[in-house]
């Protein structure tokens, strides 16, 4: 695990979503998007615990997972601009970026929509005797949906190699976890399925990485699933249109003080793995990379309108 690379990943994710936010604000992108800013340590911490051949499923807030998993920034940018060279050839947009062959089984616009799919990947691994793991990312909102119950139970009884990663960013749109649940943690649900549950500071890449590594190891060895709850926060609005009426500016500021990138950078500085203020340079490089990606993407050709009729069936 090269720490500097992980920092770079986080910076890339942040730069990407800040750029996308900007483009939406300028009305330059169609549709909507959900920004991962603030949650970078979760995606990067978890995915850095994976090996070649492992897979992930993602959510509506999926850019961070995709970048952490190694998807190509250029093709992601192209997809957001609806270009033919995008991951979905312009058909999917932000909420459907996927690279199934590479093991990124897709963002998903339906909350909880990929929880069964992740179990299926785990099932395939188990059936084939492959020591691989499927990571299922989802939000606190998905814990409220019925499929959470079904998926966790299936994974538990069949000891599927699935790591359930709940990104508790305190809100499902405007619904606060304080009013959506009557319990202090969401990982407490795990025992009801007979699986380990752990709550971790989602603003700390190293802590996330550690619990994810343990969970992945357990799953790989045939020990079944784990439910990880990563406590985190989304800095920006739920999606492009959000007046943030349901929370205070102060609350956002408090969380920003615990910024996962600044936190990790200063940790690396302390350890001597990073020069003082080197991360500002890395940040600059990340932003450049993103600018370049969107510039290139904007020059790509649009898909042919008739292509809308293709790909309904294989």
């Amino acid at each position, binding site marked *: 695990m090269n720490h500097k690379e992980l920092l770079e990943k986080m910076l890339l994710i942040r730069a990407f979503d800040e750029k996308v936010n900007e483009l939406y604000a300028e009305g330059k992108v*169609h*549709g*909507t998007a959900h920004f991962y800013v603030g949650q970078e340590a979760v995606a990067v911490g978890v995915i850095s615990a994976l090996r070649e051949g492992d897979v992930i499923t993602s959510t509506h807030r999926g850019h961070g997972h995709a970048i952490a998993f190694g998807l190509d920034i250029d093709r992601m940018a192209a*997809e957001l601009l*609806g*270009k033919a060279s995008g991951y*979905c050839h*312009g*058909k*999917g*947009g932000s*909420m*459907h970026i996927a690279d199934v062959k590479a093991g990124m089984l897709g963002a*998903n*616009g*339906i*909350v*909880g*929509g990929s929880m069964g799919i992740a179990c299926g990947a785990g099932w395939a691994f188990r059936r084939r005797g492959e020591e691989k793991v499927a990571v299922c990312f989802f939000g606190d*909102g*998905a814990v*409220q*949906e*019925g499929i959470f119950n079904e998926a966790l139970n299936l994974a538990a009884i069949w000891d599927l190699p699935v790591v359930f990663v709940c990104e508790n960013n305190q809100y*499902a*749109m*405007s*619904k606060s976890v304080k*009013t*959506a*649940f009557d319990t202090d943690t969401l990982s407490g649900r795990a025992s009801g399925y007979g699986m380990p549950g752990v709550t971790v500071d989602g603003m700390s890449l190293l802590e996330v990485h550690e619990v994810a590594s343990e969970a992945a190891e357990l799953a790989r060895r045939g020990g079944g699933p784990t439910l990880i709850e990563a406590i985190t926060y989304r800095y920006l609005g739920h999606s492009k249109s*959000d007046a943030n*009426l*349901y929370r205070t500016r102060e609350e956002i500021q408090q969380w920003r003080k615990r910024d996962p990138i600044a936190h990790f950078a200063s940790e690396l500085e302390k350890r001597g793995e990073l020069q003082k203020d080197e991360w500002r340079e890395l940040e600059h490089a990340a932003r450049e990379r993103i600018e370049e990606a969107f510039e290139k993407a904007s020059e790509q050709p*649009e*898909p042919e*309108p*008739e*292509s*809308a*009729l293709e790909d*309904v069936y294989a």
Partner: protein
Amino acid sequence: MPRDITYREAVREAMTQAMREDDSVFLMGEDVGVYGGAFGVSRGMIEEFGEERVVDTPLSEAGFVGLCIGTSLMGMRPIAEIQFSDFITHCMDQLVNQAAKLRYMFGGEAEVPLVLRTPGGAGTGAAAQHSQSLEDWFIHVPGLKVVMPSTPYDAKGLLLASLDDPNPVIFYEHKLLYNKKGDVPEEQYRIPVGEARISREGEDVTVVAAGLVHHHALEAADALSGEGVEAEVVDLRTLSPMDHETVRGSVEKTGKLVVVEEDVKTAGWGAEVISRIVESESFYALDRAPARVAGADTPIPYNKNLEAFIRPSPEKVIEAVRKLLDVKVGVYS
């Protein structure tokens, strides 16, 4: 003096007036409270009615719709909001196996006065899981009613009527209609569920539509008028029960039928409109093959041009009418 308000405001006004009058009416859904709903329809309502009557739910579409059904069995008058109509897939059991059938299964000894509001339709670049028009499913489910108003005036009148209805009503709004303005009286009025409206008179062809695409039909009719073709436009307003009589009357007058629907063409509700005409005596009044202008048989793509390519539009309606009038074949050739 006309009182122009938006479709969004008309829906809100109907809810608000019903809630002021009847304490058993309440609104429940995701982010309907301080957020005001994903499309701002309920903005301001929690301030007036409090969080016991404008209820933010967890993401639990089956659970809270089931809960609403339970309250309706107990005599309350719930309004459930499903944030995007695509998520109605989560509460199909509650709507189809419970709400629609409880009364019948119980031998008529119960009522389920539930209104489920939800915005349907595409055109926002939200792609395949946030853009569907699935109303046809519910037309196919006896026990449910399906309403789909196209104007602020109808939205208010039909929502108030739906709230009076002792049956479950799926009330389809449209994202692209929310900002549409129109004259809406402040006082309460009802538009009967199940009554279509002739929104434009004409002699040459009948164009049947509902919801957003009703406006495409009107636009097309105006353009065609310039070519000397006078279309009669029927706004169904309610899809179930379907007002066949109004359609029939118009078709028997014009002898020509074009249906405009936003949903996917195959097995969409346009097929039902057409079938009711052709399986009745009106068949013999048709002097042209009827036509459908509908969404293509694809999911909704993200890219703007792709999305436009597969959706109905005024131009496609004009083209369909022209083509239909041009046809010089068959028994009349």
